[in-house]
């Protein structure tokens, strides 16, 4: 059993209570910083711990917090991104259901670090159950003086509200999410100004992923070196929640050291490959990462190692495909997703994705022509000219299919049928 930090209080059948969380050291970090720390000290320990954003972009959390200037205007906001709409990703839901106060304490600590007094949890409609848990637990924390006015007698005020989304993948992107919260049509907004300078209602806003925030209390309480030491690799820090799905025996969420090998996750934690299945490829970190071929079966799963392999750790949502899975079919499905969820703001994405989807459909259904491959490559390049990171995300599976599984695509075209039936 590896060290359980974020899942320390996880039970298979119920939510950890506030009492359990406190018993395990919960809210000690908050009490400590309120008593004797400065904002800069909190920012510094998070920076030293190399806590990289768990929402996909791997931006250092401490650095982000420190970009809110000391003399920035008020009110300031912390937004917790619980949108989690990328196919294959479900870790944030599991984290909230396991130990909701860990998240609440993390949001409050981030608030302290930038002297914000309001936190907003942005949550997708499919997670209505989690939204209700959070509202209930916020009220409990307020009753115990852990949230709200004058927290633990320190004079620091911090409120958290739950903001329900109407449900659309682009709302997970920072600037689109801020527009969504402000009741505007949630199209992205290219910086500058950066949200930490002018975010919600033109005020400084720090937005972090659920898992990133959940790490914060533990780092503040146990220190940066402890956190770095949790990782298996020199280049990693902390633990990571890996959500694994697809062709494995036991899909689910596992908390493992950053840098654990992919093979170990599959074999020791997910119960191995499904009956009769052989590993062919996986998407290592959600729908907007590339196919990782079998030659990387033993890769250490951290941000740096995947970057070196020309891929991304993303959200750590591992989707496993076996020797019987048609990767053209998988990519077609992903392009259906991206084409449907495109916010429609810019041309390369809005117009390009449907074309890509239809070309792939032709190939998958046996009507593909050899020249389609070149067109797909060119269309993939155009996606990089789009307005936000959504379209380059869509390019990742497409481009890696064409790079690593060109034979499979070719076979579809030559046989005029899907070789997998």
């Amino acid at each position, binding site marked *: 059993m590896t060290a359980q930090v974020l899942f320390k209080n996880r039970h298979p059948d119920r939510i950890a209570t506030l009492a359990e969380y406190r018993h395990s050291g919960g809210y000690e970090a908050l009490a400590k910083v309120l008593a004797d720390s400065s904002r800069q000290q909190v920012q510094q320990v998070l920076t030293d711990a190399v806590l990289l954003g768990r929402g996909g972009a791997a931006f250092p959390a401490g650095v982000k917090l420190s970009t809110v200037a000391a003399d920035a205007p008020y009110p300031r906001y912390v937004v917790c991104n619980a949108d989690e*709409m990328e196919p*294959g990703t479900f870790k944030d839901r599991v984290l909230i259901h396991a130990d909701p106060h860990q998240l609440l304490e993390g949001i409050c600590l981030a608030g302290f670090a930038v002297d914000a007094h309001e936190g907003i949890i942005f949550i997708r*409609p499919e997670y209505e159950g989690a939204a209700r848990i959070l509202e209930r637990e916020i009220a409990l924390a307020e009753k115990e003086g852990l949230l709200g006015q004058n927290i633990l007698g320190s004079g620091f005020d911090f409120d958290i509200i739950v903001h329900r*989304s109407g*449900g659309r993948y682009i709302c997970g992107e920072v600037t689109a999410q801020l527009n969504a*919260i402000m009741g505007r049509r949630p199209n992205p907004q290219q910086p500058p100004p950066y949200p930490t300078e002018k975010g919600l209602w033109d005020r400084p806003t720090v937005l972090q992923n659920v898992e990133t925030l959940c790490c914060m209390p533990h780092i503040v309480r146990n220190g940066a070196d402890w956190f770095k030491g949790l990782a298996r690799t020199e280049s990693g820090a902390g633990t990571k929640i890996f959500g694994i799905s697809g062709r494995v025996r036991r899909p689910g969420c596992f908390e493992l050291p950053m840098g654990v090998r992919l093979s170990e996750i599959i074999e020791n934690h997910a119960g191995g490959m499904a009956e009769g299945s052989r590993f062919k490829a996986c998407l290592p970190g959600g729908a907007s990462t590339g196919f990782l071929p079998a030659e990387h079966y033993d890769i250490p799963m951290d941000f740096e190692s995947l970057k070196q392999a020309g891929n991304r750790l993303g959200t750590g949502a591992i989707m496993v495909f076996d020797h019987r*899975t048609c990767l053209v079919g998988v990519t077609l499905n992903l392009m259906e997703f991206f084409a449907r969820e495109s916010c429609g703001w810019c041309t390369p994405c809005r117009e390009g994705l449907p074309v890509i989807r239809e070309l792939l459909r032709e190939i998958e259904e046996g009507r593909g022509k050899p020249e389609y491959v070149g067109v797909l490559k060119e269309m993939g390049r155009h996606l990089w000219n789009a307005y936000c990171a959504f379209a380059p995300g869509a390019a990742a599976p497409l481009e890696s299919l064409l790079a690593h599984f060109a034979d499979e695509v070719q076979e579809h075209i030559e046989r005029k049928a899907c070789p997998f039936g």
Partner: protein
Amino acid sequence: MLPENLKKELQDRIAAVDHPRELVVDVLFALQAHYGFVTDEAVEEAAGLLGMTPMEVDEVATFYTFVYRRPVGKYVIHVCDSVICWLEGGRSLQEYLSQKLSIAPGETTADGLFTLLPVCCIGYCDRAPAMLINKKVYGPLTPETIDQLLDELREAH
């Protein structure tokens, strides 16, 4: 027309926040619960309550998957058609649902009970193939569990 008590409840919530329009999705959900879907009248009413133009409200209303601008049944079945559910046989389950309910995706049964809407990954890939009925999750699904569920919902009605 909105009943007075619902109107009052929404007005109170709106009065309690700094920026009324941050509640636009909540208000649309409340009106949807009342009317069954977001009618043109509901768009006007939401705009009035929030101090927005109907156009601004509709820009938001038409964007979101869970805000229905057209009539839906009492039970809205959102069946996941994203990659992991697809891998686990989701497409044939969607066809099964279509056939059982005698409706195509996007349609509502004649008795007004069920609407079938394919959606993107609902975040329960560990329970694939999965679906939501009125925001409650079910999975992993089989034709048998679907039969049972539909029967229960019909009976409950």
